[in-house]
């Protein structure tokens, strides 16, 4: 299975993501610099990692979303290639328009950095196929702008179409309807604020993140 990680100036979870992908697939991902104008051929999965691309200037993810490589990422996602955006990656995917809504400043203003309980809201997606719907898992968050916002109509649609992948067991940032992660209409794009790639070794404090990657590999294989 071929995977790639997009790297922006200010990405800081790209190597964690690479470790998680290599653990799940047995092969290291291609690391693709954001100025590139093409992706490697035959990719099965593209990851947009966490961090602070462009220092969060203008809005979190706004400038990264306009990087040359994101045009190619969007084309690949439109063709059905799986696309995973974590934290700043989620912000970039909303700014790109691949996912609805926006990530606002946390309601409590503070940067939130701790383990949180997540409820698997749907196990129907390729990304959540190794979890049971309704299961609660522990995954860390580390963000300042994770407060998911969309208008009521868009939120109703996400719920009606079973596109909410994860909800916070306890809302840590003010997100509408406790949303921690959503998928696009076709189901091949997931954005989530928590960091599954930081919960894949017992030394991390748990391994609940590992099944996101192993489930994805099984679903895409």
């Amino acid at each position, binding site marked *: 299975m071929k995977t790639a990680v997009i790297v922006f100036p200010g990405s800081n979870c790209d190597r964690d993501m690479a470790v998680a992908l290599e653990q799940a697939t047995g092969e290291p991902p291609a690391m693709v610099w954001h100025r590139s104008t093409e992706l490697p051929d035959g990719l099965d999965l593209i990851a947009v990692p966490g961090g602070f691309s462009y220092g969060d200037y*203008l*809005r979190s993810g*706004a*400038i990264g979303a*306009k990087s040359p490589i994101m045009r190619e990422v969007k084309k690949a996602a439109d063709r059905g290639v799986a696309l995973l955006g974590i934290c700043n990656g989620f912000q970039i995917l*909303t*700014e790109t328009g691949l996912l*609805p*809504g*926006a990530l*606002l*400043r*946390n*309601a*409590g*203003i503070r940067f939130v950095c701790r383990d949180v309980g997540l409820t698997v809201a749907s196990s129907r997606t390729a990304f959540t196929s190794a979890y049971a719907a309704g299961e609660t898992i522990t995954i860390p968050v580390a963000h300042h702008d994770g*407060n998911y*916002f*969309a208008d009521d109509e868009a939120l109703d649609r996400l719920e009606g179409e079973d596109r909410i992948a994860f909800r916070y067991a306890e809302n840590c940032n*003010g997100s509408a309807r406790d949303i921690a992660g959503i998928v696009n209409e076709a189901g091949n794009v997931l954005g989530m604020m928590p960091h599954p790639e930081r919960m894949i070794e017992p030394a991390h404090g748990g391994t609940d993140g590992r099944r996101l990657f192993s489930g994805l590999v099984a679903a895409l294989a």
Partner: protein
Amino acid sequence: MKTRIHITLKQGVLDPQGKAIHHALESLGFNGINDVRQGKLIELDLEDGASDADIADMCRKLLANTVIENFEILEDTAA
């Protein structure tokens, strides 16, 4: 030609920074403040002839996120 763009959060979008400013003003003894909303102002120095349509395009494509923000192109200001 200089153009200023005023970007504000839409009605109904929570503005925790505005709320923090509001509380700070009250703690300084300023009363009678109903609400505080924080926005941003972007100044562009453009070649003469840039149309409002071009500037609005810049706003929609990058400067504002129209899911959560409104933008207003303010009058040209003398350099």
